[in-house]
């Protein structure tokens, strides 16, 4: 019997036994749906992480000089305590490093904390307030939508002015222009001079819920002890320039911290690669757990198909006997039942793929999880579906093929 004949027969049987076939589809369907959806989410997060997240948090060709890493997967208590004992980055460190770098770079100081911000009789809790120097906006790619950023002069003299994130501006001054108005942080008044353009969300968290004030303004007292910053941010024009600048910065910091040649750095120079490494760790876990869950679903699906096929063989013993008496060879019967189980699995997988893609789009639209369907997962879905069908069909089909036609024909 030619293959397409077997497949046609399989579809006929499928149509004739809708409920039974439906149940056997279910396992593969669930497995493949999950495969596509989970893969889309991981893939989407991956795209997001590599293209946007890392770039936005750290920046392209940018490194941060910090006391300890900012993005840290599972750190042991002892490491954490060791980090907490490290000397902090001072204004002096920042100035010395900036002076020592020979490549053309732009630098900014950065110190942040979550504080309450008040204005126009309203109060917003838990706002990320940053004390920074004037190039901060350039390095972070924060465009000013309204008003202006603060100047080097304002940073040097610590003028209490402030630039708001879009969300803060809208919440405090919903119907008025915020420029020139006053907000209070920690009891101190600041004059609003600018509002940053819309930044969007990441994993459901608003990127517009922040405010930036000059580093030497009173905000310093809220975010860090006097003379201390969280990070010196250095942005170069190329990867090579960044690497060179990092070497220079490392040298300066080691000498300022009086480190001997064999001693490890007691500071970090963090790049976006570091963040991606952190993400890579999470991704590895997801790519390990995901296939496990998909595997379980597919094994269950395979067992269901195998059972249904064994039932089908038992029910159709007489038909098998008849087909054999009419000249069907063992391989004809084998092929017929294999085609049937594979068709069931592939149909299940196809519905699973469509549902998985739909689910991915739904997740992307309705939840903060970014999802992007991967072509590879679709190919894999089809292959896995077919594979499960063949594997689950082999045993029932070979049982059918081995039936003795006389006994089979005699069965009621």
């Amino acid at each position, binding site marked *: 019997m030619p293959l397409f004949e077997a497949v046609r027969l399989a579809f006929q049987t499928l149509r*004739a036994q809708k409920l039974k076939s439906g149940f056997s589809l279910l396992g593969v369907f669930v497995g493949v749906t999950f495969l596509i959806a989970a893969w889309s989410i991981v893939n989407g997060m991956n795209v997001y992480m590599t293209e946007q997240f890392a770039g936005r948090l750290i920046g392209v060709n940018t490194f941060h000089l910090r006391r300890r890493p900012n993005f840290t997967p599972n750190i042991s208590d002892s490491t954490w305590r060791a980090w907490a004992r490290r000397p902090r980055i001072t204004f002096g460190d920042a100035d010395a490093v900036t002076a020592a770098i020979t490549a053309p770079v732009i630098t900014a100081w950065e110190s942040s904390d979550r504080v309450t911000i008040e204005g126009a009789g309203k109060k917003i809790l838990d706002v990320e307030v940053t004390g920074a120097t004037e190039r901060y906006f350039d390095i972070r790619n924060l465009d000013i939508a309204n008003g202006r950023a603060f100047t080097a002069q304002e940073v040097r003299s610590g003028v209490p002015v402030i630039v708001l994130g879009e969300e803060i501006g809208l919440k405090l001054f919903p119907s008025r222009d915020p420029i020139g108005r006053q907000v209070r942080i920690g009891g101190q008044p600041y004059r609003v001079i600018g509002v940053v353009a819309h930044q969007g969300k990441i994993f459901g968290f608003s990127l517009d819920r922040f405010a930036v004030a000059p580093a030497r303004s009173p905000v310093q007292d809220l975010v860090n002890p006097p003379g201390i910053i969280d990070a010196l941010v250095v942005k170069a024009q190329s990867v090579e320039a960044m690497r060179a600048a990092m070497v220079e910065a490392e040298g300066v910091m080691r000498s300022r911290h009086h480190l001997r040649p064999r001693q490890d750095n007691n500071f970090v120079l963090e790049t976006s690669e570091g963040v991606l490494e952190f993400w890579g760790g999470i991704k590895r876990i997801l790519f390990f757990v995901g296939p496990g869950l998909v595997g379980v679903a597919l094994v269950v699906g395979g067992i269901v198909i195998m059972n249904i096929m064994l039932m089908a063989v038992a029910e159709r013993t007489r038909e098998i006997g008849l*087909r054999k008496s009419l000249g069907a060879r*063992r391989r004809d019967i084998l092929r017929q039942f294999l085609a049937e189980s594979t068709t069931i699995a592939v149909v299940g997988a196809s519905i699973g793929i469509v549902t998985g893609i739909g689910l991915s789009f739904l997740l992307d639209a309705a939840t903060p999880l970014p999802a992007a369907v991967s072509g590879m997962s679709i190919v894999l879905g089809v292959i896995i579906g077919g594979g499960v069908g063949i594997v689950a069909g082999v045993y029932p089909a070979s049982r059918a093929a081995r039936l003795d036609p006389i006994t089979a024909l005699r069965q009621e």
Partner: protein
Amino acid sequence: MQEFRTGDTPLPDVVILTHKLTREYDMGSETVRALRGVSIQIRKNEYVAVMGPSGSGKSTLMNLVGCLDTPTSGEYWLNAQKVSDLVDDELARIRNKEIGFVFQTFNLLPRADALHNVELPLIYAGLGSKERRARAADALQRVGLGDRMDHRPNELSGGQRQRVAIARALVNNPSILLADEPTGNLDSTTGLEIMALFRELHDSGQTVVMVTHEQDIAAQAARVITLRDGLVATDQLQAA
């Protein structure tokens, strides 16, 4: 008829030749000897009825002649080909090309229409769908069901079902038409119609072998072989 000895080959017009055919079944502790050495020869275009009480071995003989089973010892020649030592897949090919089965219970596929049921042997013969359809339609025409091709078995009467089964048996132009109690599930009127069809087929040159336990059905055949205890008891020609 000429005596056949081991080592001979059958005469050209002998379709079925069995020589000292035995079949034993292992039933745990004891061995059942269903056939104890059956030697028969059936010529082209003969119409033979095989009779015998239950347990006489007639079903076993039918299974062997139909290539559904292989003998324990002895020879079976079908159309000058020794089939008693063929393996499974070769037997399947013989069943497909040389033998047309008609069963007591029709054995049609319930979900397939008459045309598709008749097509089945041609699928296993590897024919293309156009030729299959044409030949299946011819066969159905031949048994008088040209207007029932798209009917399913449950939309047909018992007699019509058996006609579909006969069309299926004929569609590959087999050397022998092998019928096992073909009227056993039919009322007497319909049974007579089916018997008339067999006679018609025989008159047009078809070799027919029929197992039955009914005397008046056997009376239609030109030759009656009676089995008893796994041996040929009588083998008589009778006037038509």
